[in-house]
């Protein structure tokens, strides 16, 4: 399935939003794995490892299940307004 991920902070170098292929019924953890290639290309794999994923209303745990077509956000460590 395809999960859309909005980019924030340093991930903006990848664009405003990317589409990531994740296995059917995959979790946030799987989404993180699927993003590794993108991150490596931009030298962001260390940042990916410490980033969180969120829906439009909450930060998600690693076990949260992704749905096809869902729009999530990647949240690198925040720098405090």
């Amino acid at each position, binding site marked *: 399935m395809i999960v859309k991920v*909005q980019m*924030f*902070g*340093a991930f*903006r170098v990848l664009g405003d939003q990317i589409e990531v292929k994740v296995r059917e019924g995959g979790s946030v953890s799987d989404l993180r794995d699927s993003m590794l290639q993108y991150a490596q290309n931009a030298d962001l794999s260390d940042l990916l490892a*410490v*980033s*969180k994923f*969120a829906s*439009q*209303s*909450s*930060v*998600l*745990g690693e076990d949260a299940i992704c749905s096809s077509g869902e729009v999530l*956000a990647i*949240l*690198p*460590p*925040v*720098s*405090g*307004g």
Partner: protein
Amino acid sequence: MNTHVEVREFDSNPLDAAEALSFVDAAGNGAGSLFVGVVRNLNQGRKVRAVSYDVFAPLAEQGFAEICSEAQQKWGDDLRLYVAHAKGRLQVGDISIVLAAGSPHRAEAFAACRYLIEEIKTRSPIWKQEHYMDGDSDWVKGHALCGHD
């Protein structure tokens, strides 16, 4: 509603301290505490020309509202609270955040305003990219956000 929370595109509408004070004013309120955050010309020894604020607006606004509600639980339901954070590219001297708390008494107004800024700084999905005088740009290092559970 006695709270106002907002992420605002700086280009279209700069933040405004007077607007914040006017929102938290009420006939029973004798005290207003306001905080304004402004882009500095220096950070950790580097000369700064501008700062771009990236904000995940829906989650940020929801977080602002939660923090306001916590402050009202601590210092009174009658607190009037205003939170606005800028999004976009700001020059040195531009306002990045305006907070205000209005209360019948000053202790509560100060405490609530201070609580808002400290919590917003640590809990909000906001990222700063500094643009330096030497032409370089850097995303400021931060700390991982926590979920609520």
